[in-house]
């Protein structure tokens, strides 16, 4: 029997409506009810969490680790290590790989590599269509048998409405969600940034918000007629939020997540043509940014995702219209959420943690995102008031494409625990006290 007590932390578990100053006891990889063992039970090891938040391990509902095929950007091992450093115990890996994860064997490969890495849990998201071509459904049932928990064509929108309708109908057999990159491809072709005043000044081809809004409306209509579950990845437009708000109120199975950079930045950040700010969907204007925050606050947006898109330096060091889209965001998500949501008072800690645990667990149908007694002990410990500087050169990720280098932030992940085992410990975190000598 191995045991770990996390002492005197502020334990927050939104799935359990818990926010209290107490200990958390873990025995043999499971959270247990301390009362059953008595307060004087001597655990093998202890972590003093005074002044810290203890919560379920964070879950990212979509990241890109790009293995197999693009190991120069990230591997499942390096990505999972980066995720741990960001406080994540589970991440869902998009199938934007080569070959695409569109067969049982390829899903099993992701599961196997995750097991080998023994960092955080990496669960595969299977492709909706074979080879992401948008023409034929992938072997969705086989993918589920191989470990796929949801379906997506990654950054390629499922543009054919009939294919999307069939995919929603088909996945409804397992009640699995389809995560769509909602965008009308023809409206953003060649686009580099949000279409608006800034794109006009910079001479960069724009990506209109309407490209997203039209697809969101279509997906809502298809979800309504198909009884499927659709999830909009990295929502970025004000009107999209409004559409989803209304659809949810009508009982349609639609959800959305948002990424921290869309909550923090506006399109003015591209004024120096820095490719680190080039993301898809693009960062939009203040009006859109405010609407995203409102959507989070009122519950329309149920998850926050880093949309981790690691890209090697040689890919990002190109001219802006030739560099690929994406930010490597796993290791900066939490402090950016503190800056944009906690510090201005838009969300409470409990609400924020809900968007990072219970929300994504519900979306992905995972038995995770909770620390109620009996659950697997995936736990994150956060120092909410610690101020530090982001240093991309200290990232665990293989890539450094993140525009927040040197930014002074508050809120730091101190420990990440998977299966009751401390797999990440912040460099300056107190050593765990061991009672086992």
């Amino acid at each position, binding site marked *: 029997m191995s045991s770990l007590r996390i002492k005197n932390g502020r334990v927050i578990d939104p799935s359990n409506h818990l926010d209290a100053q107490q200990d958390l006891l873990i025995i043999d990889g499971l959270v247990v009810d301390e009362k059953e063992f008595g307060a004087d039970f001597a655990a093998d090891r202890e972590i003093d969490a005074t002044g810290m938040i203890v919560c379920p391990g964070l879950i990212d509902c979509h990241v890109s680790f790009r293995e197999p095929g693009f190991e120069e950007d990230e591997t499942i091992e390096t990505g999972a290590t980066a995720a741990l450093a960001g406080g994540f115990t589970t991440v869902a890996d998009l199938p934007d790989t080569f070959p695409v994860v569109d067969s049982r064997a390829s899903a099993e490969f992701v599961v196997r590599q995750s097991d080998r890495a023994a960092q955080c849990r990496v669960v595969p998201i299977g492709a909706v269509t074979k080879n992401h071509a948008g023409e034929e459904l992938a072997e969705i049932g086989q993918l589920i048998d191989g470990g796929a928990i949801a379906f997506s064509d990654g950054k390629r929108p499922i543009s054919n409405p009939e294919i999307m309708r069939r995919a929603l109908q088909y996945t409804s057999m397992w009640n699995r969600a389809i995560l769509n990159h909602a965008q009308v491809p023809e409206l953003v072709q060649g686009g580099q940034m949000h279409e608006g005043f800034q794109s006009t000044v910079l001479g960069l081809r724009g990506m209109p918000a309407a490209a997203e809004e039209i697809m969101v409306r279509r997906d809502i209509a298809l979800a309504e007629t198909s009884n499927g579950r659709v999830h909009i990845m990295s929502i970025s437009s004000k009107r999209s939020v409004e559409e989803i708000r209304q659809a949810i109120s009508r009982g349609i199975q639609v959800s959305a997540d948002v990424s921290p950079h869309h909550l923090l930045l506006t399109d003015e950040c591209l004024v120096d043509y820095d490719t680190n700010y080039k993301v898809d969907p693009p960062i939009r204007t203040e009006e859109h940014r405010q609407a995203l925050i409102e959507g989070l606050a009122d519950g329309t947006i149920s998850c926050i995702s880093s949309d981790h898109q690691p890209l090697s330096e040689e890919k990002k060091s190109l001219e802006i*219209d030739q560099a690929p889209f994406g930010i490597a965001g796993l290791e900066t998500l939490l402090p950016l959420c503190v800056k944009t949501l906690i510090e201005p008072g838009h969300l409470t800690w409990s609400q924020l943690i809900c968007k990072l645990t219970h929300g994504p667990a519900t979306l992905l149908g995972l038995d995770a995102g909770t620390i109620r007694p009996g659950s697997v002990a995936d736990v994150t410990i956060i120092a909410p008031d610690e101020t530090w500087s982001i240093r991309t050169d200290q990232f665990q990720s293989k890539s450094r494409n993140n525009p927040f280098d040197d930014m002074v932030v508050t809120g730091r992940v101190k420990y990440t625990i998977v299966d009751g085992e401390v797999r990440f410990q912040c460099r300056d975190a107190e050593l765990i006290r061991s009672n086992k000598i």
Partner: protein
Amino acid sequence: MAASPTSSVPIGNWKRRHLLGLEKLDREEIELILDHAAEFKTLQATRSKLSHLNGIVVANLFFEPSTRTKTSFSLAAKRLSADTVDFTASGSSLSKGETFIDTALTIESMGVDLMVVRHSSPGAPELLSRHLKSGVLNAGDGTHEHPTQGLLDIFTMREKLGSLEGKTVTLVGDIKHSRVARSNIWGLQKLGAKVIVCGPPTLIPVEIEQLGVTVAHRFDDVLAESDVINLLRVQFERQRGAFFPSIAEYAHLFGMNKKRLQKSKEDVLILAPGPINRGVEITPDVADGKHSQILHQVTNGLFVRMACLHLLAQTQERKSVIQ
């Protein structure tokens, strides 16, 4: 002809190492360049070679095809006694996979002081300016800016009108894909002109009104108030898809012709940054007529570029040893 001694052309308060666009220049800086260009025009009346850039190496880095701009820059540098080196993307190491930053760094390490950069990507000269020690002069970056073209247009207007204060300049055509339009808008407004942009809605970039310009979609409606009409070329090569139904329809709605000239001010100036599509943006009789400034623009471009090169050379640290 032998080089004459360096003439004392004052450089005023010029402090910039790079000239990346007119957006960031203030009115005084623009006027300084124009005044400087005017002095070079006077000095060049004798066509003698000047020695202002003696010992300076100017590299023309053209990652996008160009004939007139490249020739103009090359000649401007040579008239000032600079050593010049030309680089074109075709057949270069770019085709072997080298990034353009590495290409520029390689050329710079041969002892270059000033880089004249033309590139199809907006912001490419700005990106280079962050990596290079040499001064960078934007010779056109995608659909962003073309500052020396903007300056030579403005120089030509100022030469004919005296001042741009209160004058109305109408830019006609493909505003969306035009780097010249953006440079014109920034520069003209800073000098006090009113700017109208005119074209079909498909060729007008979104929210351009926020720049302070007036948008018009009917050319005939703005003819009477325009002191200058600058006819921008339809950028067929930068467009994708159909922005207007046919060339004939475009010429019908937005082409400058004799009939429209009759509706214009008596002393209207007709500019076109070129190369012009005769019969599309402008009919031959207007292009070759008395209102046309097209060839003056080309001539003035040389002096504007001499002025820009000279100003940047002054702020550029001279490198006596190749590192």
